[in-house]
């Protein structure tokens, strides 16, 4: 069996998708990153190995997400792709007619506009993470419920309260205030969903021409309250993609399949053995010039594998032994 692996290492979760040579999803995995991107990639690979048949041939590996470069060095990726393109490709695979992709993840949210199967514009939240998954997680925790309960409970709302959603810090104080005034929890929860959707549309979606079909993906697409609020606000059907939570990884796998077929090259995949290697990350301040760049490095047994973070090229040369 031939297989292509897409790995999406995000701030909050790490996603794996394995496609066969017909681009059919054969296995996917959704793990919490817990601030340990390297360990999670290793753990995920172990799981992938367990699930795939013995005689599998890995023909291509791609990484995406905010830790794509780090993950790429560890697994020996054939392709390192940004998460915006990956999500667009994933969405188009399942919905060739898609015109708008809304993606809300743990720390960032995106909007991608597509016309005639080509991305024409995109937006991503800039300075503020308001309205993303980690805030919802945090609020669920504060109200002592799971994020699944949050999702169900918000649908029971009959008279949602208005919550200031511009900034998550103020949204939280506003929520507490509404709680202390005696509003029902479900009304507060759905009010929060509405506030976050408003904020998303006025911030990330500002000035974007949102046309149906609208595809919703990313971890937050699990949340029924957000889906409902989006549908109400946009007044259109919101299509939640199948496997929406791993769509970035699927997109990356699709892209690497395309690339490997075009180039006819062997995969640089380092094999499932990388799960057993002990990696070390460290950083230092380069003092060569007054820029004082923070250089991060990845090493095994004192041997440098890669370095990042400089403004100039001096640390980017091929790592010497």
């Amino acid at each position, binding site marked *: 069996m031939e297989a292509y692996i897409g790995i999406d290492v995000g701030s909050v979760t790490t996603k794996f998708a394995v496609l066969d040579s017909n681009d059919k999803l054969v296995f996917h995995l959704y793990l919490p990153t817990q601030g340990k991107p390297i360990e999670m990639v290793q753990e995920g690979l172990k799981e992938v190995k367990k699930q795939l048949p013995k005689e599998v041939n890995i023909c291509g590996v791609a990484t995406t997400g905010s830790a794509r470069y780090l993950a790429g060095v560890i697994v020996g990726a054939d392709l390192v792709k*940004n998460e915006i393109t990956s999500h667009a490709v994933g969405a188009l695979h399942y919905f060739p007619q898609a015109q708008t992709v809304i993606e809300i993840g743990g720390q960032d949210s995106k909007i991608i506009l597509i016309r005639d199967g*080509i*991305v*024409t514009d*995109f937006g991503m939240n*800039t300075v503020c993470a308001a309205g993303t998954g980690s805030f919802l997680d945090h609020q669920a925790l504060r109200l002592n419920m799971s994020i699944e309960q949050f999702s169900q409970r918000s649908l029971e709302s009959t008279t949602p309260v208005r919550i200031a959603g511009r900034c998550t810090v103020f949204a939280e104080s506003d929520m507490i205030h509404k709680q202390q005034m005696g509003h029902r929890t479900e009304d507060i929860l759905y009010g929060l969903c509405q506030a976050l959707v408003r904020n998303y549309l006025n911030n990330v979606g500002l*000035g974007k021409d949102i046309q149906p079909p609208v595809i919703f993906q990313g971890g937050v697409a699990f949340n029924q309250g957000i889906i409902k609020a989006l549908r109400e606000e946009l007044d259109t059907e919101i299509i939640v993609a199948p496997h929406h939570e791993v769509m970035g990884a699927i997109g990356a796998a699709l892209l690497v399949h395309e690339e490997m077929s075009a180039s006819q090259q062997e995969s640089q995949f380092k094999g499932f053995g990388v799960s057993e290697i002990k990696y070390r990350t460290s950083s230092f301040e380069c003092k060569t010039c*007054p820029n004082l760049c923070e250089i991060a490095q990845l090493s095994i047994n004192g041997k440098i594998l890669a370095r990042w973070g400089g403004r100039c*090229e001096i640390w980017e040369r091929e790592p010497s032994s």
Partner: protein
Amino acid sequence: MRIGVPHMGNLYIPLKALLERLELDFVIPPANNRRTLSLGVRYSPEGMCIPFKLTLGNLIEAAELGADTLLMPAGSGICRLGYYAKTQEQVLHSLGYDAEIVSVGVSQRKLLGLLEAIKRLSNNASWSKIISAFRFGLAKLNVLDTIERAVQKVRPVERVKGTANKLFAQAVSATEQADDYKSLKRVQTDYLEQLSLAERDESAEPLVVGIIGEFYVLLEPFSNMDVEKELGRLGVEVRRSIFTSGWTKFSLFLNPLGVNEKDRLHKAAMPYLKRDIGGEGWESVGEKVLHAKDYDGLVHLAPFTCMPEIVAQNIMPSTKENIPVLTILCDEQLGKPGMLTRLEAFVDLLKHRRRAKVKV
């Protein structure tokens, strides 16, 4: 009296040449770095833009080196730059530096004012000496810009990544050291030749992206996170709307050719914006209209809180001349990884767009 100047890209090189030829005592503060930025951020009033913060940092660092007479551009356009010199002077005074800021008018009609300011600073040097020093500074500026234009063409197609950047760094320091026209000329010829000899991918047809927006963030790579180098690394050829020499030509002189590029831009922007809104806002809209056909995309750089560019950003989507625009707001809060993600996605978008066009 010791003169100090703020940084903007490589502008310090011609300034240094000018001040040296006038035999003045001066200091060039360290190139923009993290300390400059934190000083600037710390002592700037709330809501100031990155050009203000960085130049303030430069002026403080110059004052630390004993400068008591600081040159700062002011004037031109209706943006807040007009009063930066005054505000920065107050900050410096409150920090205990007894420094005077000489605001140098930089608008088309102020060349005389600028020359007069130099005359006053130079202890009444003769006009011929001033003009000759000025010309030499400008010559350096032109050499730097000529070489940089060549660098922009080599970056996307070079076989060994980083070749052009390395040559450019060498060329900059060689230009700085050149002390007469002859050696200056040799620097230009030498480096243009080396750049033309750099091994390149002949089959590459790089995407062409115009860099437009506010002049300071365009000309100071530290403030825009080296957006040009990063685009070059992604295989994109950049065409920057403003070069230091062009900027000084517009703002310090009446345009010698008589054809004003700015007029052309204003005319193009006319259907969408009928008046100057300060800074380069009017020009940004015009750039989009004029270049929609010949570029693959535009990267629009603006300082965070820059009103003219925010207005331009919101006008641009409604022009009928259609070309993808990526706006990047430059600020001390701008994170490099986030910017790279956007640039990479933007380049993918442009590639697919070009491929689709070829098919049709």
